[in-house]
C-alpha cells in the first residue's frame, strides 16, 4: 500500500509529533512544526493523533493513490484538490484509487500538514517516523521527498473505512474544526512571548525594542529557525555564553543584533543570549512565517502560556468527542 509522489513539491518531508529522548545525543525534537495542526488533521482522517503525515512547504505536491483513502490538511492558505474537486483545509475528503491529490503554492503562510488515513508507514527510528533532514535519517531516506518516490501507507483503520463509505457520494465532508485550527496563517501576526533568562546580556532597552518593533522574516529561514530583520536588538556585551539548552520558541540574539526564533529542528544547545521564548500555542502561527512577512511580539506571563495550552487541549478533547459519530 502506497502513494506515489508524481511531483514532490518544493520541500516535503514525513513528520509526526517528533523525536524525544535523544536530546542528550544532540538530536533535535524535529517533527511537524505545528504539531497541533498535524494532530487535528490526523483526527479528521480517523488516524491516531501521532500518526505520521507529510509536511508540505510552499506546495507543488501531487500524489497518486492506488487505493481509496481519506485525506485532510491544515495549515496556510493553500489550494488543494482531489482530481478537480477543491478540498478546503480542515475537511476530510475521499480520494479514489487512481486519483491524484494536489496542493498548489500558498497565498498566505508557507506550510501545510497533509494526513492520509492509515498514516505514512515508514520505519520508526529512535521513537519517531519524522525525517531528520539535518542528521539525514528517519522519514524517507532522511531527506526531502523526491519526484517519483513511493510513500508507504499503513492499512486504512476501521474508523476511516466507515468514513470512506459515508463520503462515496459527496467526496468532501461538510464538517471541519474551528477556522483557527485548520487555517493557521495570519497577516502581520503578533506572537506572544515570555521573557528569556538572558535579558541581562542584552542592552536595557532590548526587550522594549523587541516588543514594540516590527520585524521582517529573512530568506534564510528554515525548519531550524526564523531569522528576523528589523530594529537592532542591542547586546550589552559581545561575548557569547557557555552553550546551554535551547528549545523551539527560544528567541536568541547573535552579535548581529538580528534575533532568531528557533523552531523544531534547532540545535539542542546554543550560546547566544536568550531574549525571549515564543509560547507554544503561538508556534502554530510562527510555523507559517515566510520570507518577507512582518511579525510583532507581545509579552505575557508564563502562567498565561500554560493556560492557553491547557485551554486548547480542552477544546481538542471536545472536538475529538464531537466528531466520533462520523466514524461509526
Amino acid at each position, binding site marked *: 500500500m502506497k502513494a506515489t509522489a508524481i511531483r514532490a513539491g518544493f520541500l516535503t518531508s514525513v513528520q509526526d509529533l517528533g523525536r*524525544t*529522548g*535523544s*536530546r*542528550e*545525543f*544532540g*538530536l533535535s525534537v524535529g517533527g511537524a512544526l505545528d504539531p497541533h495542526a498535524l494532530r487535528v488533521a490526523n483526527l479528521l482522517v480517523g488516524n491516531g493523533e501521532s500518526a505520521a503525515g507529510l509536511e508540505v512547504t510552499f506546495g507543488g505536491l501531487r500524489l497518486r493513490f492506488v487505493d481509496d483513502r481519506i485525506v485532510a490538511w491544515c495549515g496556510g492558505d493553500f489550494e488543494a484538490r482531489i482530481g478537480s474537486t477543491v478540498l478546503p483545509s480542515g475537511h476530510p475528503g475521499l480520494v479514489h484509487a487512481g486519483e491524484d491529490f494536489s496542493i498548489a503554492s500558498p497565498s498566505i503562510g508557507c506550510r501545510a500538514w497533509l494526513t492520509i488515513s492509515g498514516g505514512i508507514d515508514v520505519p520508526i*527510528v*529512535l521513537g519517531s517516523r519524522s525525517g*531528520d533532514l*539535518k*542528521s*539525514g*535519517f*528517519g522519514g524517507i531516506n532522511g531527506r526531502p521527498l523526491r519526484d517519483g518516490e513511493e510513500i508507504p501507507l499503513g492499512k486504512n483503520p476501521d474508523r476511516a473505512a466507515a468514513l470512506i463509505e459515508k463520503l462515496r457520494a459527496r467526496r468532501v465532508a461538510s464538517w471541519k474544526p474551528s477556522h483557527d485550527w485548520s487555517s493557521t496563517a495570519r497577516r502581520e501576526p503578533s506572537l506572544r512571548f*515570555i521573557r528569556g*533568562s538572558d535579558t541581562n546580556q542584552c542592552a536595557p532597552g532590548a526587550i522594549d525594542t523587541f516588543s514594540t518593533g516590527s520585524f521582517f522574516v529573512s530568506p534564510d529561514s528554515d525548519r531550524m529557525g526564523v531569522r528576523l530583520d528589523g530594529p537592532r536588538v542591542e547586546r550589552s556585551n559581545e561575548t557569547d555564553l*557557555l*552553550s*546551554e*539548552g*535551547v*528549545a*523551539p*520558541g*527560544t528567541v536568541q540574539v547573535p552579535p548581529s543584533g538580528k534575533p532568531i526564533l528557533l523552531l523544531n529542528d534547532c*540545535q*539542542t*544547545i546554543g550560546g547566544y543570549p*536568550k531574549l525571549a*521564548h*515564543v*509560547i*507554544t500555542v503561538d508556534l502554530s502561527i510562527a510555523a507559517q512565517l515566510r520570507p518577507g512577512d512582518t511579525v510583532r511580539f507581545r509579552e505575557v506571563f*508564563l*502562567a498565561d*502560556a*500554560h*493556560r492557553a*495550552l*491547557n485551554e486548547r*487541549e480542552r477544546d481538542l478533547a471536545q472536538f475529538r468527542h464531537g466528531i466520533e459519530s462520523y466514524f461509526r
Partner: protein
Amino acid sequence: MEITPLGDCAVLIRVAANFDDAPESALQQVSATHRQLAAAKIPGMVELAPAYTTVALFYDPLTVITAGAPVGNILGWLEQRIHEAVSKNADSSADQFKYSEIEIPVCYDNEFGFDLDEVARRAGVDQKEVVDLHSGAEYRVHCVGFIGGFPFLGGLPAKLATPRRETPRKEIPRGSVGIGGKQTGIYPIKSPGGWNIIGRTPRRLFDPQKNPPGLLRAGDRVRFRPISREEFERLAI
C-alpha cells in the same frame, strides 16, 4: 541551584556558577544532577539535556497539570520536585558512577587533517608535535550537541587552542577531528562546520539505528590514538 523557565515546556537548571575556573567540578555537578533527575521520574518530565554548567529539563505541561500542578503555577510545582529529586539523592551514587573510557583511533595524515598545518603554525610547533600533544592528553566530554553525536571535549593542551575558521567549510567529512577554540571535537556525520580539522577517525560515533545512537555522553573520558593510513582503512571496513 537556580531554575529558570526555558519557554513554557522546559526549565534550565543551573548547577555550577562557572565553568572555566573549575571544569572538573562543574562536570561532576552537572552529571550528578542529570542522573538524580533521570532517576526521579518527575511526572511530565520528557527528557534532559546537560551542558557545561546546566541541565535543561523538558516537560509536557499538560501531563504536569494532570499530575496535580496548578495551571497558574507549574513552575513552582516543578521547582519543588526538582529540589526534592536532587536533595534526596544528593550523596548517593554521585561519586561512584563509572564513566566510560573510550579510545578513538585517529589518522592524522595531511590528507585528512586539512588544517594541521595552520594549527601547527599558530602553536609554533611542527605537525608531529601537534599530533603528540593532541593524542597525549586525556579529555572529558563536556556536552554532546550541535549535530547528532557531536562531542565537545575539554582538556585540549593550551598550546593547541585555535580560533574557529572565519569562513566555515560547507562540508566536513564524517569522522573529522577538529579544534574549535579551547575545545576539540569529532564530526559524527558529514556536516558544514568551522573547526580546524587535524585528522579523521574510522570509528562510528553516531548511528541512529542503534539505541543509544551516540557513542559518547557528557562525562565520558576520551583519548586519541594515532593510527596509520593502513590501519584507518582496515578499521573503516
